């Protein structure tokens, strides 16, 4: 690849830098950037210093008395430094300590890490070769390379928009070391699907050249998405060295890796509370640091309708919380692209026929009858599972017309291969109370409202396919009464079922026996919103799902629970378990708190889904804590799991007596 072309790619790529850098700046005037001000670099907005604080000069001279050593090949331990040994910092120690160093999630095929590290400055790093089958794939790789380089500059704790690294090292020769990177992809795929190959390899070699070392990194994969994961891994083989104010890279490494599960997702709900696009981008950033690849966007619900449908703008007019709490098509498109370049697919959900209410009230006003029934009905317990109530009117043909128009609007913006149709918590009583529906029952002779629901589902699917111009599209639905006793309406060769019931529920077994492909979001372990008290009433029912709950939510073991020894042959080899997804329902979530609820617990689930470890070894905690610190440095407001002393002195923070 010519240098000129590379420059082109680089310029193009700078258009889409991470939101922390550019998005934040661009949106800085808007309300939705308010929370982002609480980033590490600018915690305070209101807290202006009353007087200029002068930090004593002493702090410059305050050299840490500590050094870190890798102990037992599993954790980095602090000890007093002495003159005879070379000092090491915590971050540098972690690079080569243990089988996996600082990598999260850990590689599944091969992880060979040399014991040595080399210093370099980020300005001496260059992507020298980009090879791929098409211009599109090559420019995507160039972009990913830029995101990677941006992270390198930001590893310096004092970096703020520009490099804080020194240019020379005053005799240490760091500036003479260079890093070259070559990126290679074979496939021309530019979108993530359930068939995307995400395998990659990273090879680091180094040799003497001129006055310094030449470090070469080869990242190769079948697809762009593999290459991107490879660059993510490479970023985890590099750390900031406080003592030398430089970066360090593992001097020799061979990593081969691929995920155990294809579907590694997070779900965000933007109907209970609105979340500005800027924060969804930040979520994508954090997902990419964890090689999660599916962002399931529960965009609408009964509470509000924030998706701007250009074919049916009445939906937002009546359904949005306010004029500034709407997702415009342009913003959605940009998010989809932003995510794709970070290895994440945005998977939209349009939940129906339940969980639809506000936004649908305008039917009678425009003379087309009720599109949704029991909207905001009281007492809500009679009509729905949680207020506000609302369920689509299955007997009004306009309902399907509008549905089809919304599907068209959505498919224009998102990938067209998979679509989440919702389908959960249909409250048949809501329908039962309607005269219109009672009449239908009498005339059709069908007294099981499941039939009506089934009819709805079939019609909705037809509308979805029409909206996709007849091209194949895979629908996903939540587990519900229909997946229990209405399976005749759900063709196993078409539908994917997202399981939100408990992992031991008998439906899990029967769905797999029915050859449905499934995604696990089992409520007993993967609900990230649990534990903050109920939003209805006083007391709390669910306790928090700890990172250990998520990490231990072993999909293989769930299969074994239901199928015993036959699990592998019947379920796993058949590829029925696509993966898992942790969900953040937004009753008590918005942009101001979402990150501390998502992270680092979702990181624990990411390793579960990528690496599928057979158990949780004692070294996992330390590596996770270290990974959390990395995420925080990159700007993610991840919650704290332990005192910092546990990070600095691994080991003592386990409680071997808690079982006693």
């Amino acid at each position, binding site marked *: 690849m010519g240098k000129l072309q590379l420059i082109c790619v680089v310029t193009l790529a700078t258009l889409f830098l991470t939101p922390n850098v550019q998005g934040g700046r661009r949106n800085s005037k808007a309300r939705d950037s308010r929370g982002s001000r609480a980033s590490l670099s600018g915690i*305070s907005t209101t807290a202006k210093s009353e007087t200029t604080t002068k930090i004593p*000069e002493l702090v410059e001279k305050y050299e840490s008395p500590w050094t870190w050593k890798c102990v037992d090949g599993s954790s980095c331990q602090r000890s007093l430094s002495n003159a005879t040994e070379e000092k090491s910092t915590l971050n540098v120690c972690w690079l080569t300590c243990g089988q996996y160093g600082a990598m999260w999630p850990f590689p599944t095929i091969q992880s060979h890490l040399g014991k040595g590290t080399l210093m370099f400055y980020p300005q001496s790093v260059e992507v020298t070769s980009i090879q791929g089958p098409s211009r599109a794939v090559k420019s995507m790789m160039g972009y990913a390379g830029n995101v990677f380089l941006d992270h390198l500059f930001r590893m310096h704790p004092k970096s703020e928009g520009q490099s804080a690294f020194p240019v020379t090292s005053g005799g240490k020769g760091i500036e003479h070391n260079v890093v070259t990177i070559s990126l290679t992809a074979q496939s021309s795929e530019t979108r993530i699907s359930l068939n995307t190959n995400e395998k990659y390899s990273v090879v680091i070699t180094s040799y003497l050249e001129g006055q310094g070392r030449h470090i070469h990194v080869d990242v190769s994969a079948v697809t762009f998405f593999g290459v991107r994961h490879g660059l993510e891994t490479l970023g985890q083989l590099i750390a900031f060295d406080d003592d030398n104010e430089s970066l360090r890279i593992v001097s020799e490494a061979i990593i081969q890796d691929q995920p155990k599960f294809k579907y590694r997702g997070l779900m965000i709900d933007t109907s209970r509370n609105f979340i500005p696009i800027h924060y969804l981008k930040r979520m994508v950033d954090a997902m990419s640091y964890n090689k999660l690849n599916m962002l399931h966007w529960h965009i609408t619900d009964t509470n509000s309708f924030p998706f701007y449908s250009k074919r049916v703008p009445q939906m937002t007019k*009546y359904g949005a*919380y306010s004029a500034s709490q709407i997702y415009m098509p342009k913003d959605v498109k940009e998010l989809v692209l932003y995510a794709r370049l970070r290895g994440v697919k945005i998977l939209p959900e349009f939940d129906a026929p339940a969980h639809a209410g506000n936004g649908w009230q305008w039917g009678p006003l425009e003379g087309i009858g009720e599109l949704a029934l029991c909207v905001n009905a009281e007492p809500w317990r009679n009509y729905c599972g949680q207020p506000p109530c609302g369920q689509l009117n299955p007997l009004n043909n306009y309902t399907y017309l509008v549905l089809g128009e919304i599907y068209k609007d959505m498919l224009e913006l998102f990938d067209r291969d998979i679509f989440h149709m919702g389908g959960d918590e249909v409250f048949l009583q809501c329908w039962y109370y309607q005269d219109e529906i009672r009449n239908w029952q009498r005339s059709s002779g069908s007294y099981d409202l499941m039939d009506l629901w089934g009819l709805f589902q079939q019609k909705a699917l037809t509308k979805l396919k029409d909206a996709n111009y007849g091209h194949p599209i895979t629908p996903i639905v939540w587990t519900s009464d229909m997946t229990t006793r209405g399976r005749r309406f759900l063709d196993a060769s078409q539908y994917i079922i997202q399981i939100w019931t408990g992992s031991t529920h008998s439906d899990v077994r029967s769905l797999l026996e029915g050859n449905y492909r499934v995604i696990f979001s089992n409520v007993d372990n993967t609900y990230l919103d649990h534990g903050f008290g109920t939003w209805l009433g006083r007391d709390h029912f669910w306790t928090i799902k700890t990172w250990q709950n998520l990490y231990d939510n072993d999909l293989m073991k769930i299969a074994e629970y239901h199928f015993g020894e036959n699990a592998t042959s019947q379920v796993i080899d058949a590829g029925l378990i696509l993966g898992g997804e942790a969900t953040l329902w937004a009753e008590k979530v*918005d942009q101001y708190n979402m990150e501390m609820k998502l992270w680092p617990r979702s990181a624990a689930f990411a390793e579960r889904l990528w690496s599928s470890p057979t158990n949780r070894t004692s070294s996992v905690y330390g590596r996770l804590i270290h990974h959390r610190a990395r995420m925080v440095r990159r700007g993610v407001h991840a919650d704290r799991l332990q*005192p910092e002393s546990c990070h600095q002195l691994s080991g003592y923070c386990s*409680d071997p007596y808690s079982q006693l």
Partner: protein
Amino acid sequence: MDKFKLLLIVSVVSVFALVYLPETSGQSYFRMPSPWTYVCKNGTCTKKLRSDSTVIQSLDTCRLRCGRFRAIWPRPTGDVELSRVVVPFKPQNLRILPVTAPTDRTRELLNRVITDFQTNILKMHPNYAEGGANPFDKQYDNVIEGTVIQVQVVVDDPEERLTLETSEGYRIDIETQGNVVSAEVRGDTFFGARHGLETLSQLIAYDEQRDTVQIISAGAVIDRPLFAYRGLMLDTSRNFVSIKGMKKLIDGMAYNKLNTLHWHITDSHSFPFYSQRVPQLTLYGAYTPDKIYFPEEIKDFVEYARIRGVRVIPELDAPSHISSGWQGLEKSNAVQPGPNTIQPSPVSVTSGGPMAVCVNAEPWNQFCSEPPCGQLNPVNEQTYLVLGKLYRDLLGVFDTDAFHMGGDDVNFNCWNSSKEITDFLAAQRRNRTEREFLQLWATFQRRAYVELVRAARGTELTPIVWASNLLIQENIENILDPERYIVHFRNSGRDRSLAGILDKGYRVIFSNRDAWQFDCGFGDWMGEGRGSCGGYKTWQRVYDNNPLRVIAQLNTTEEIDLQPGQIIGGEAAIWSEQVDEMGLEAKVWPRGAALAERLWANPFSSWRDAADRLIHHRERLVKRGINADRLQPEWCLQNQGRCSSN
């Protein structure tokens, strides 16, 4: 279905599309003519279609005009008489009259508060951005342009340091004459006046329709807190929180009229306080060189807090909960004196053994309540010397009438495992019984207090200690004088030892862990469990924790005879094993607001009566820059009273 009708609807749809579809280029959001309005009914604001209502107003406007307490949080304790008429104005037309204050110092403090007050009004605009253009900088109609808001602040009392005796009451009077709205805020002290300005800011709200702010046109509020001590405790030893992050915590406290930050600055995990007299503690005890609180920063912080009505009370926990840093005392030459250091005097370690015993001892559960272990050596004279130096350093940077001496979780097995201590007991012919160790502890406390008094150089300083089994010993009153000591109670509210403490006459601060501990519920940081202190404390639980009711329900055989003012207040604890700046605000707010109303007004009513006002107040906190947790879907904010479980 009629085909014609279908066509019609499709064309209706496309007309809408033409009207509302924004240009795809550019960032121009379409201005949605909202079909909704809010109507005040039974004290709450209800969302209605505009076509069904005669009043067209936004939610913020409705809240300003609706309910007994309007949008004020915490609710006032005195008379609230407020007009339902609101007057729109532009913030540039605020005329702040020169404050009436007895001293230059109080005037200076008040002027700082007024600056914040004005900023908080600007922050009401949805497009407000710090450092950005004034979003109200535009031409309004003649009425708004001609309306002037005059604010007069009056204080007579020169008090400039908040103490347990400080009166924080205030009254606000608003009247409108012609195009001038006059608001007078009269504070009992500077602190009362700042609370008054906080309340005044809550009588102002943004008006979407006119794109400007509005104030209640007439009325009066008379208000004062029911408890003198309304606090939060922050632990900065388990995890460090930067001064910036702490200032944001102060901001949030000011918005809720909380008045005390109890700063648990050190513990066994790290020693982030920069001690000028014993810098070894910091060098060896700080997590990293940039996780240190320097004297200048702390002084600046204390002043920042004072302006916001908050006093900062430091805690130096002893004799337990010490470890990190104390190993450095044996290496007194390690610190090179810098321009701001005092040359550390070498500390002799020859007599009495080490100053800290069982440091990092394992298995930890035999020697301390949580790792890493460590406890001061009470039989080493040097210990008191170092303590005295630390007290002097702390009192040099804080400005406080009370000092938290810690005194929790003392582990006798730790002392029993130390040869110096057991030798000492043997030399005095004392047994190694619990009784003797309690005696040792009591002696330590007495001597530490002597050092504290000495460090205070004669100024009156109230010691605070954690409730412990030391305080229920017979005749402990002879060593820990109930006239002097305040006891900080953090056990469960059902723990009857509280009755014993009250019976001895100690004044008490409430932090009962079953309601007022905010770090609970995030999983056990060491083990596998889901949390060590009984799960997450919901805001409802926080709100309903009435200290007087807790005492009444203790179920003691004898009636507890409370002295007036014996319960001086309460505080919520944020122990920081699982907290740092990333999660701090979501864990503190808005539960801290629920605590604030409980301590300010101590209402008889339960959380149910406060819920709508609280979720509205939460939005205000967020607008002012606090990353408060979300309690409910926004639908509940817009449809008040409808998100209840029954």
